[in-house]
């Protein structure tokens, strides 16, 4: 798929965001983890809000978690998603404690359940960008 075929909004590959999505492109879900107090964090930040340390590293996530909450967008409010509706933006809470906005890929919106177990998959939407998405496990 060439870039021009994909019309949906994409992250800007800048700074820490570029690093986050760079790992996704390699098939790895990594989050920042404070080198001082070991706290995980997402979205990417320069400093640990828990202890003030600016030392951190990208640590591999288990890729497993549970569905924290979701909505079903029945009426698309952005032109690029017009053909997708209904679709379900969701928030997943990883085992590490961080949450991220994502999409659940293998169940219909009507089957979404809070606390359902999920695991990460990677969707290479363009040659440059791979989005982490999740599938429900134990179905």
């Amino acid at each position, binding site marked *: 798929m060439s870039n021009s075929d994909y019309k*949906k*909004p*994409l*992250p*800007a590959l*800048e700074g820490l*965001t570029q690093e986050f999505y760079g790992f996704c492109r390699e098939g790895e879900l990594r989050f920042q983890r404070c080198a001082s107090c070991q706290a995980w*964090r*997402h*979205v990417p930040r320069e400093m640990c*809000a828990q202890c003030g340390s600016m030392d951190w590293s990208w640590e591999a996530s288990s890729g497993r978690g549970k569905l*924290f*909450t*979701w*909505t*079903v*967008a*029945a*009426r*698309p*409010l*952005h*032109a*690029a*998603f017009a053909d*997708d509706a209904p*679709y379900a*933006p*969701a*928030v997943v809470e990883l085992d590490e404690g*961080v*949450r*991220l*906005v*994502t*999409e659940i890929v293998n169940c219909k*919106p009507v089957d979404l359940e*809070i606390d359902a177990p999920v695991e990460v998959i990677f969707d290479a*939407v363009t040659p440059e*960008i791979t*989005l982490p998405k999740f599938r429900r496990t134990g179905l």
Partner: protein
Amino acid sequence: MANEACIVGIGETKYCRGEGSGMSQLALQLSACSAALADAGLKARQIDGIMPFPNLGSAEGFAANLGCENLRFAATINMGGAAPVASLQAAGAAVKAGAADYVLVPAGWNGYSGRRAAQTLSEQVSSIPGGAIARDFYFPYGLTSPPQWYALMARRHMHLYGTTAEQLGAIALAMRKHAQLNPNAVMNGKDMSLDDYMASPMITDPYRLFDCCLETDGAAAMIVTTAERARDLAGSPVRILGVAAGQPYPADEITNRKDIFMTGLTIAAPQAFKKAGLKPSDMDFAQIYDCFTFEVLQQLEETGFCERGEGGAFVEDGRIELGGALPVNTHGGLLSEAHVLGMNHIVEAVRQLRGECGARQVKDAEVGVVTGWGDFGDGSIAILGTA
């Protein structure tokens, strides 16, 4: 208690959809400003402070058009829909500190005939709350607009506390009922039943169409001064008994809050009540920023009218309707009067305290609360009382 800042003038335009206002966004707001000046009995040159709503005009532009030759205080509170009530705090502080004598706070837009909400979203990410965070981590998944962000909280609340669609509907119905008593409400003359509500199309689960605020054209404005100056004016001032603003944490990212229901109001409400020396049960009415139905329920909880998780039961049985224990949004709110960025909630609170609300007047209203909500949950609250 004698030296609180006061609201001494209010003004608003006709609220409409259909053909639209036929005026520019600035002209519309200037009309509301002129109405506020006339209401206060002030001349434009006496206005020496102006606080425009974020991205809806400059103080310089308002001053040049109105003829405010002595402008010396200009500021904008960047809290989205929480800005007008938060501006009450800043305007009050400014007049008490002598930074200005009379501060004018306008708000308004052609929200229907101009840029409708669905169209603004695909434009500048820099104007969206969260900025690059939303662009990089929300938009790629189609999480692009306010009802979707807040629906995430509503869904979680329903899961944890058993809050129902019928309870959200009770909020929409109360606002619609009140609009029938307000000739300037866009939904005046348009009754709604629970069946109508339940049958309205789903926008973003759990929000149906009638859970969502209107898109309308209209503007409103208010003028703030000191109690001392207020005494020299003809009208009856409304006192700002307690006012506060706050932000959720983190304010720029909506999903990684330790407490997902924590908003700016969670911080601000106790401060405002403490300053006023009053408690929620003292309030004769509440004008709650109702961008969506669940945000009313959430703010009732965070303001302290009920405990966390009890909001669903609280809004049942007509409690928030006129004649109930706590009439909410007696003008019809953003859901059924018009979306005037919450400035219409302040205007309504002032009118209730002046006893000018006719068929929708809360009997013997002496003290009431008005809230603002913006961006990813910024909050503001003012407790207002009769002079």
